[in-house]
């Protein structure tokens, strides 16, 4: 019985210490030091919010760079991957369809030039990034749709591309939303 009373009281004490004390310290830090007061960092175009920097969104128009396939259709209220095994025949057929669709949209590419990331679904279904190579193969399509030179588009891509952390660790990446916003504000 004595143990039960201690259990109840120590749980309540931990609640005060953790769910109140610890949480408030972090909440306060967020006010002071986070990019957007503790909420998801937003991206604006001409003063209007067009998305969250870290949450990918669906792009289908030719004038925009496209992100990766998403198993949840870029629904930020949920998240999820396909959870398909790479040995699953049904899944492989799906990838084949995506490859063909990608080649149709980019007729100037050969099959060997299609980056696998553009035809495989991300883990979260909200991947905000593509690789520099994934952006490179789309430049001609976007340039043609916008009626500007490939060079001009490439310059925008380069300005948005982020290298690995400290230039040494991890992968380089291009945030698709930031890239498209930069395009819209440039052209």
């Amino acid at each position: 019985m004595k143990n039960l009373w201690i259990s109840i009281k120590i749980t309540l004490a931990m609640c005060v210490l953790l769910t109140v004390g610890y949480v408030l310290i972090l909440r306060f830090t967020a006010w002071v030091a986070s990019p957007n007061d503790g909420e998801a960092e937003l991206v604006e175009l001409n003063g209007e919010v067009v998305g969250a920097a870290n949450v990918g969104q669906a792009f289908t128009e030719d004038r925009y760079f496209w992100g990766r396939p998403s198993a949840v259709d870029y629904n930020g209220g949920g998240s999820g991957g396909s959870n398909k095994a790479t040995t699953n025949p049904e899944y492989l057929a799906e990838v084949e369809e995506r490859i063909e669709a990608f080649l149709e949209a980019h007729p100037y590419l050969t099959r060997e030039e299609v980056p696998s990331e553009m035809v495989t679904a991300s883990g979260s279904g909200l991947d905000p990034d593509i690789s520099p190579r994934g952006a490179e193969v789309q430049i001609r399509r976007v340039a043609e749709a916008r009626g500007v030179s490939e060079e001009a588009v490439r310059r925008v891509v380069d300005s948005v591309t982020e290298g690995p952390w400290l230039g040494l660790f991890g992968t380089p990446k291009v945030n698709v939303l930031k890239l498209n916003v930069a395009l819209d504000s440039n052209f």
Partner: protein
Amino acid sequence: MNTEILGVVLQWVALLLLCYPLGRYIAKVYKGERTWLDFMAPVERGIYKLCRINPDAEMDWKQFLKALLMVNLFWFFWGMILLVLQGWLPLNPDGNAGQTPDQAFNTCISFMVNCNLQHYSGETGLTYFTQLYVIMLFQFVTAACGMAAMAGIMKALGNKTTKTIGNFWVFLTRSVTRILMPLSLLVGILLVINGTPMSFDGKQTINTLEGNEQVISQGPTAAIVPIKQLGTNGGGYFGVNSAHPLENPNAFTNMLECWSILILPMAMVFAFGFYTRRRKLAAWIFCVMLFAYTCGIVISVSQEMGGSPQIEEMGIAQDLGSMEGKEIRIGSAASAMWGMTTTVTSNGSVDSMHDSQTPISGMLQMLNMQINCWFGGVGVGWMNYFAFLIIAVFISGLMVGRTPEFLGKKVEAREMKIATIVVLLHPFLILVGTGIAAGLAAARPELASAWLNNPSFHGLSEMLYEYTSSAANNGSGFEGLSDNTPFWNISTGIALIFGRYLPIVGQVAIAGLLAQKKYIPEGAGTLRTDTATFSLMTFAVIIIVAALSFFPAQALGPIADYLSF
């Protein structure tokens, strides 16, 4: 050199550099020596006073276990009630409903045993209130509970002859105030600065660039992520855990979070060495664990970076490796590293979808959990290794014709029986569970198609992974499995309970029994345990007992999956 590989190497080095000093610090905390966090002492005294705990009162191993089990029982009711009623409780801006009883049972058990077998998705299955008052609270206190058990064992093994093994409540409190909370604050602040959300507003709706509506979930994420990593719980705030770009915004946070998974389990090994003044033994144990962990990383990283042979055959460019279920900012090498790190410990958080990794990586992830003691969960992982140590002492004692002794105590039939039960329980839970599920799926094809997301060998792997993860209290999954059904909720819930409490009870009992025995000074006739030979022996025992019992199941799952294409 490839920057992805450099990233993996950096994480590995950061772990090795920091675990040794942290281990020394942890030993000091449990011994009650002075540390630079002594300003927490008034908080601790307040807790003892409120709960009427006498911090100087020592417990024997039975009293220790009674306290441990009682507080866990109370947590069970606490969690069940809050999860079922969450729809009516405050801090629910999105209006999420309460969980069904079988789902609440699974969720509650899962977090109570410091696991995260989440059969729900955080965005819709919980409210901010239950995220904090059930999930986050349990992530702290249940991790502390495992650490307290380990502290008890250290005390039992460190003293020459003793009836008492310390005060459970004191160990529990100190684990939170001196170790888990300060480290979590540090990691949490770094995450907040890097853009992980920390607010109490509900979902945001925005208009995308192409003019569609998009809903964005957020909330007090940065409070939960540090402790889910450090406490080896792994329960993510969002459904996809650390693959979610808000939970894990960039390459730096990914390294930080992956580092947080393993730092305490690694430090615990050294803490044992400092506490019991057997640093050489601890160093050898560490070497065995590190060797196994590093082998796994090398194989898995090369598999994932090499890409999927099936995709390769389709003739597209796969230079980034196998990217299905992975994120660009993390990359295939760091995803493989995380997959190994989360399974050698009982963490279970993920930053890529394990279901979509290549078969050999999946096999290694399962193997890590089936062995369950290459570092392992905070406290409990080392304790699993301890059970194997006892068996190795006994077997090698018989082989060379000496009385089996460990740390100056005779290992006799009673301790051996307990150790054997603890060690065999794990394959029993996993294989029987998978057997039943596979039998049901084979007898009724409609069940198989309802449960499984992938056909054939990989389907079996999904079920095998689920029970492996439950019994090891890991919590990651081949998430293709549709596991939010009464069958899976209840059967894995049972595996979780047995997989947690029987080993803890057994290991504390062994330590308690050993502690009471007469101390025999080490002499020329003693079989030394702090040598390379004995470490190799333990490694062999682990491979033979743990790994080989799973070989047939592995052969039908991932190995067949690998070979069939």
